[in-house]
Every structure is written in structure tokens, then in C-alpha cells.
């Protein structure tokens, strides 16, 4: 995988990244805060 110019633009563009920030915050909360538990039953 090689980062294209468009990839790099997206990674650095503050406006796009504001939306990314909100998206990532929600997604990460979803992954980590949705509980943990046993594997044995």
C-alpha cells in the first residue's frame, strides 16, 4: 500500500479531519466501552 497524494491530502486536511475526529471518537468508544467479559462460558 502506498499513500497517494489524495490519501495524504485527506490525512492532513483539518476540515476533513474534524469529521474524522468525531467519527473515530464514537467508533473507538463503541469498540472499547461496549463491555468486556468472560471467555469461559
Amino acid at each position, binding site marked *: 500500500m502506498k499513500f497517494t497524494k489524495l490519501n495524504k491530502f485527506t490525512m492532513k486536511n*483539518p476540515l476533513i*479531519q474534524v469529521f474524522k*475526529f468525531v467519527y*473515530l471518537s464514537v467508533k473507538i468508544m463503541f469498540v*472499547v466501552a461496549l463491555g*468486556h*467479559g468472560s*471467555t469461559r462460558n
Partner: protein
Amino acid sequence: MAKIVILGAGIAGHTAAAHLRRKLNKTHEVLVVSPNSNYQWVPSNIWVGIGKMTSKDIIFPLKPLYKKKGIGFKQAKVMSFYPEGSNQLIKPHVKVEYVTGEREGTEELVDYDYLINATGPKLAFDLTPGLIPGIHNTYSVCTFGHATEAWKALKELIATVKKTGENAKIIIGTGHAKSTCQGAAFEYILNVEKVINDSGLRDKFEITWLSNEYDLGDFGMDGMLLKYGRKNISSAEMVKSVFEDRGIKWITKSGVNKIEKGVAFYENLAGERKEAHFDFAMLIPAFSGHGFKSYDKAGQENTSKLFKGFMLVDADYSSKPYEEWTAQDWPETYQNPSYDNIFAPGIAFAPPHSISRPRKNEAGTEIYPAPPRTGMPSGITAKLVADNIIDQIKNNNKNLSHKGSMANMGAACIASAGYGAFSGSGVSITTFPIVPDYKKYPKTQGRKLGKTFGDIGLAGHWLKLTLHYAFLYKAKMKPFWWIIPE
């Protein structure tokens, strides 16, 4: 009325103490024993190591906070364990030694009803001859003191290169064949690269990743298949792309076994013995247990009941080949099997085995990462231990209903890839579960795709910074701190 003693005031110990104090009334005693006077938010050491933060940004004193909240504090280190009591004190107790003030060097027996061992790892620099922070041009970012020293040396090197125009070599990675915490080294190499890039001297520096991982992106977690945008890629591919983009070279499958001034000696899985030269290196040491000893009522040593390097808990420690490892091997309550009032959350518990596939070369040298236990699982396991103790005290419920296996727990790793409000970057990775469950997710390398994903960009830097402030707010136990998840 119960007395809960917590050994260690790192992420795990402090989290346990805070939750216990909040949920138990003041008739119960919560006492922390730890040699450090300050709480430090370890993940931000990376930014201390590049001069973007100073130690005062990431630490605060524990004593005033504990006094205000009604948590007892002894600035001391635990020396030995007496889980059945001894002829000096009937109740189970630990022997501690004060490390500061008038009582420095004096020992005391501290009794308990419940004991939480959250002493984390010993930074075992001694397992790699010559690997001493600040000596031989090698540095560490494992503590804020080490990170401050690392930045001083890096700054000097950049100034020297600027002045002389000579080229310089930097090596960052693991300093032992079985080191863990590759994530921290990964963050540091990207941050160092950005600092050098910003100084306008990038072409003068050769920057190399030197690690015990079989492949890039292993991170001690056997690597991962992750969702990246609309694609599914391996963590190896993702890290390779970042390194190529930043002009960072890499050496993997290698265990450093000796350091001399400016030289790292290493052995790889192919059995070759090589040298890597550097002007500045940051190599993560091996993490080991503290070497604590334990004694029974009669004074006979019974360390093997409590420790196997780290503390024994409810894991399956039977030795079996990689192919037979299961998610069920991993502990869920962090309770010691011999003494049901002793628990070990965070890095203090002995893992059943590594997460990455164990490998050795023909000479028999084992070269693979030890399993990481990052901040989030350290906090989660500490909270569930606290909740189980609270259940026992308040409801006489000994069922240990709060469970959290790392094989059924998600984790987020927001790796800083460069500091700067608008020029910064971060590599955000989440994994579910942390320990792969190959039976449950056979087609996706043991993890749930989607919940295991990666992203790179400026938002990652903002996230990491947000977490820095949020977790320090939480650790300072400011209003509604408990709403912020571990």
C-alpha cells in the same frame, strides 16, 4: 470493617484506589503503598522525549490528592509477602520499606484484608548488558525522567549535526529479544522523525527501526488484520507504508543482546550475529517481575504460590504449543489461585504465554515479543478487581461476577505519529479482542474485522491529545471523573 492495601500507584493501582474510595464508605480503609510521589501519565512520555511536553505536564503529586479523598498513602516499596501472616503479625501482611523522608530505609509490616498487587513491571535494563539509559548513547522513554534525558540528548545531536553538517544514525525499537511495548517505540520513532524533519535536517539522518517482531506491526499481538478505509490490510502492511512514506528503514526478527557505546549487537532468527551503529538510540528494555518473595505462616518461603516472575492469577499456565493456545487461557478475575484475597491487575499479573507466536533460531535463542498489557486493559482490570472486592465487602458476594479477559476485551491504541496542532498525525488502531480468539474469528486472524480497524491522520493526534487531558482529569479525580471510561 475492611482494609484494602494497593501496591503501586500507576494506572492500575491508582484506578483501583479511586474506584474503591468512591464506592466504599469511610469505615473501610483504602491504603496505597508506592515508591513514587507523583502519578505519571506514562503514554505522554513520548512527547516529553521530543520536547513537546515537560514532566510537569504529565505528572501530579499523589499525597495531597489522596489526603483530600481519604485514601491512605505510604511512600514505600513492598519487599516481601506474608499472605498467611507470620510470627510477628497474625493477619496477612506485606513488609514495606519507606523510600523517602525521616523514615527512609525503615521497614514496616502492613496488614490487609484484601491486597491488590499493581506493581507493574521492573524495567529490566540489566538483562541487556550495556543498555543503561543515558549511557552508551542509549536512552529510554519509559519514565518521565528517562524521557527528559532522551530529549536533551536528541536535541544536542540535532544541534551537532546542524553545526558540523555530518550525518547521524538513530535506532529505535526493542533492546532485548523478548521486549514488549513495541507500540511506544513505534510512536517514538515517528515523533523523532517528525522533529528531525521539522529541523530541516532529515537528509542528514538515517533512522532505523530495530525490533524483535517477526514482521512490522506485530506489536506483541501477533499482528492483526484490520479494516483500513474500505480495504482489509495487515498491520504489517500499514506500518510498512508509514515507514516507507517517512523514509524509515527497518530490521525485524532481531534480538539485541549487548550494547557498547554507539553499537547494538543483535542476533536474528536466521542465526546471524550483527551490529547496528548509532549516535542516538531509544530501545525498550525487557520487562520482568520484581523478584518479590513470599513466606507462609511458619516462615518457609512459598514464592511459587504467588509468583512466576509476575503474580499468578486465574490463568491457565500449563505449557502447551502455540497451536493449542486458546482464548480461555487468559485470566478473567486476576485473583491469585492460592490466596483468594490477593489480586493482580495491570502489568503485574503473569500472562499464561505470549500473544505473538514464539520463535527461536537454530542456536536456541528465543526472539519474539512478550505480551503487552497497555494502559486501557490495565485500567479495566483494576476497576473490575475493585468492583469484585466491593461486592464482597458490601454484599458478601464472593462470586467475582466482574470479569474481563483480554481475549474478550477491545483496546484502542492511538499512536502519536508526530506532534502539532495542524501538522501532527496519529495512527489509530483498535483491536477486538486484544488476545486473538482464533476459534471465534477463524477467518480474520482471531479478531473481529470492523471492530479491528486502523486510521492515519491529523485526527489521531487530536485524539491522543484529548485522551491525555481526559485521563489526567480522571486521575486527578475531578468532578464526575468516573464517567470517563478506563
